[in-house]
């Protein structure tokens, strides 16, 4: 299966809105840290339901675009959006259809690791950012968060499993300064008392605490360096 088929299916099953709800628990904190200035141009990679461009537009961005490979995701996203200043584009992380240096900020939640070649994708992000522009890369699937590793089995698209250090290294290799890196815990998901485990999804309470409260979402913030 390719990305389009996999995520078109998800969109048709309505999973885009489910992801939005779950992801926002941590993504909203990442979005709140972006130093958006009035009129900024921003881009969301793998936008799904398109919540991030809508949120960034509300924070003052002049234009906010969501890019995705899945037409069904984009159709839904467009349907949830009204008001101007927000737009959607079908495209691929490794072949961004944008001119050099046009964005002040790029955001991505739970999408970056689907890139076939994440280093190529990083190079593209760097290219479309102005010098000093920021890349906020948020992922729940990473080396330290062990309970997430099994996700790969459920998805028919290859997923890159990097550690915290590997994210920092890759960012630097692609010409970013690493400005910040941390975990945003999900404090909102409800964790049942111990005697209700195992649940359908979780073997033990510890595993669930580990996933949400301890590791949560890994956010790496890169700043695009001057071009040499």
């Amino acid at each position, binding site marked *: 299966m390719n990305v389009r088929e996999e995520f078109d299916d998800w969109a048709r099953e309505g999973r885009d809105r489910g992801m939005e709800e779950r992801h926002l628990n941590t993504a909203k904190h990442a979005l709140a840290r972006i130093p958006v200035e009035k009129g900024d141009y921003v881009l969301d990679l793998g936008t799904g339901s398109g919540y991030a461009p809508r949120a960034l537009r509300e924070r003052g961005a002049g234009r906010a675009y969501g890019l995705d490979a899945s*037409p069904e995701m984009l159709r839904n996203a467009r349907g949830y959006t009204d008001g101007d200043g927000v737009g959607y584009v079908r495209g691929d992380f490794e072949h961004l259809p*944008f*001119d050099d240096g046009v964005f002040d900020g790029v955001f991505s939640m739970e999408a970056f690791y689907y890139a076939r070649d994440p280093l190529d994708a990083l190079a593209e992000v760097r290219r479309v950012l102005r010098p000093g522009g920021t890349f906020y890369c948020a992922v729940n699937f990473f080396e330290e968060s062990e309970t997430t590793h099994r996700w790969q089995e459920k998805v028919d698209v290859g997923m890159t499993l990097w550690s915290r250090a590997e994210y920092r290294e890759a960012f630097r290799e692609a010409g970013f300064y690493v400005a910040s890196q941390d975990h945003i815990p999900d404090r909102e998901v409800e964790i049942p008392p111990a005697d209700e485990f195992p649940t359908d999804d979780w073997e033990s309470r510890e595993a669930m605490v580990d996933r949400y409260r301890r590791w949560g979402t890994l956010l790496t913030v890169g700043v695009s360096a001057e071009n040499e």
Partner: protein
Amino acid sequence: MKKDLMELLCCPVCKGELELDATREEDGEVVEGTLYCEDCDETYAVDDGIPDLLPPEAR
């Protein structure tokens, strides 16, 4: 898509300029049309208001 998106868009393959041909517009938005890259001699569609700029090889 709004026409002002053209200021930012380029061909995903060669990063060259695209030429918009809008065949249907509504409320100042392009709903149907094409984006043409002369360098690649490649045509991309605007469908239901969304430009499809996936590289041809990835479609």
